[in-house]
């Protein structure tokens, strides 16, 4: 308890995530061990009961997210954490949570893949899975941190967005960020605002559980408090009852999209480093952005007008913001620890007039500042 209250602490990324979750009001964690995310579960197992929360280790990732959704329906802020293979298993329930509008936070600590891949090595190859891993259409919100301190901040934000918009929010970390220790100023972060889901107004009665107002987000009643409503993964109407009426189905689909779209500005965040006059701008996120920052400094020292666009929100993709940031730049280097998953998004955002190069690495090692520096120098892409 003493440690929790010390303002500045040396914290591991995963531990920061757990601490932040509790600070954000998370009181339920359901998970299944998988490297390199396990310390989140371990920390939650230790800390949650101390604040009256519940930790449960489920039999697999599918069950984990199911339990999380169940707990959330019962009124608890809830999360799970996993890594690539487990994240794949969770996809169905991410879709379920989207469609049934159950707030929850899913942390994916990315590791080398595909398949079992490189369990203890970093990767960024789940970014598209975070967007398109489920079937069907629905909006996705995914945040990506590049340091333990930011893990803390984004975890809180993930909960806030989930609760505000009644939707699952994905927090993408990578092995390096998850495992590294940094000084984290808990004193400062304690002041981060915490949002809670909106409960229906008035006494329990017949609840039109999925009737939403202007913001497209229905008020959410916890189970067990007399509202007695139905939740189903089937296409449903505003009462929550299954329907196949095309008009009703379409209305719901559009509302789900709209409720996120209209908050896009609040959701999207990014960081710019010396972009104003940059000729070449690195697009990076997560741990790669840390290397990129060093590379940009190196480049500037060598007289290259380099800049960095660090995406913090990956989904919705900060396309407009990127386009604005690279307006004056000639070249964009997309650096990511995969074979170019975000490159397409970047190309789409910046338009055909810009040269988009890549600095890609998918072998389990982190991209180094030198590698990005080389890419900044070179006309051609650097495939590290």
């Amino acid at each position: 308890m003493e440690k929790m209250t010390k303002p500045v602490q040396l914290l591991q990324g995963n531990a920061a995530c757990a601490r932040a979750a509790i600070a954000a009001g998370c009181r339920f964690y359901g998970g299944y061990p998988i490297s390199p995310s396990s310390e989140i579960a371990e920390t939650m197992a230790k800390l949650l009961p101390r604040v009256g929360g519940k930790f449960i280790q489920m039999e697999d990732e599918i069950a984990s997210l199911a339990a999380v959704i169940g707990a959330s329906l019962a009124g608890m802020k809830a999360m799970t954490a996993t890594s690539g293979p487990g994240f794949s298993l969770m996809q169905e329930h991410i879709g379920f949570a989207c469609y049934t509008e159950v707030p929850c936070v899913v942390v994916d600590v990315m590791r080398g893949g595909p398949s079992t891949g490189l369990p203890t090595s970093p990767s960024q190859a789940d970014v598209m899975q975070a967007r398109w891993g489920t079937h069907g259409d629905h909006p996705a919100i995914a945040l990506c941190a590049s340091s333990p301190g930011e893990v803390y901040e984004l975890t809180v934000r993930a909960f806030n967005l989930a609760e505000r918009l009644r939707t699952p929010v994905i927090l993408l970390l990578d092995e390096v960020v998850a495992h590294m220790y940094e000084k984290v100023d808990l004193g400062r972060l304690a002041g981060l605002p915490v949002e809670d889901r909106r409960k229906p107004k008035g006494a329990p009665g017949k609840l039109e559980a999925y009737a939403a107002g202007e913001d497209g987000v229905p008020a959410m009643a916890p189970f067990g408090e007399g509202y007695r409503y139905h939740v189903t993964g089937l296409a449903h109407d505003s009462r929550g009852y299954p329907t196949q009426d095309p008009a009703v189905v379409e209305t719901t689909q559009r509302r789900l999209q709209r409720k996120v779209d209209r908050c896009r500005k609040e959701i999207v965040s990014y960081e710019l480093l010396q972009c104003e006059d940059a000729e070449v701008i690195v697009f990076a996120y997560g741990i790669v952005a840390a290397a990129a920052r060093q590379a940009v400094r190196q480049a500037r020292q060598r007289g290259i007008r380099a800049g960095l666009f660090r995406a913090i929100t990956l989904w919705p993709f900060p396309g407009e913001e990127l386009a604005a940031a690279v307006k004056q730049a000639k070249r964009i280097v997309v650096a990511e620890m995969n074979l170019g998953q975000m490159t397409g998004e970047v190309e789409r955002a910046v338009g055909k007039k810009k040269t988009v190069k890549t600095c890609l690495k998918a072998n389990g090692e982190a991209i180094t500042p030198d590698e990005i520096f080389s890419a900044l120098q070179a006309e051609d892409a650097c495939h590290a």
Partner: protein
Amino acid sequence: MLDIQKYLRLEMFPHMLCPGCGHGIVLGALLRAIHSLKLSQDEVVVVSGIGCSSRLSGYVDFDTLHTTHGRPLAFATGIKMARPELTVIVITGDGDGLSIGGNHLIHAARRNVGLTCLLLNNEIYGMTGGQAAPTTPLGKISTTGPTGPFETPFDSCRLVEAAGASFVARGITYEPATLEKLIVAAIQNPGFSFLEIISDCPEFFGRFNRMGNPADQILAQKQNVVDAKTAATLPPERLKGKMLTGILHHEPRPEYAASYQESIAQMGAQAR
């Protein structure tokens, strides 16, 4: 006399199950059981998976959760953990609960989390049109086992008992009053309660296997069962090929969510 309509979402009726589907009988028995336990509608949560049986959750006026295929127990575990005071009832089918959800079933049993799991076994995949299930008896026809499966079906009760459930029972839809009593006993058991209910699928299983109309099928149910108390007194040759019904195993042990809650209290923390 109980007017069952009190517990129904009337606007959802008539329900979507086929004529004579045994699942509707289970629904009635469940509601009567809840009524006889004097549970308020606000303290009951019904969770179901995917399949015909799992559609039942939509028809009852409680907090209801119709989840994904095979996973209702996991969802329910989250609910029970979050609110141990609620009566959480899980309705699943043989495919949902034993095939895709088999892992969740054994773990829920092992964990002894306080759920009442009603597994409606109609020996086939009904919703998808009559494919072989892990419970399809040897030699019975299905669309994916046109000559009958060669796989031995599960005895779900023995499976779940072995997995550590504190209450295991089996009922049949032809015995609605007995079924009601079994459901009551299952709900009263504080830990994980498993009740397999032999139900009928007239539309597929019955039709494929020439079992006559729904009324024929329901009458045929008792042919295959012996209640456990009687079975204990009968010689083995009379039990050949028979399934046991009634309470097959009841050994209460600490319930997971309550135990967890207690440990929280011991830490001096305040729950929720």
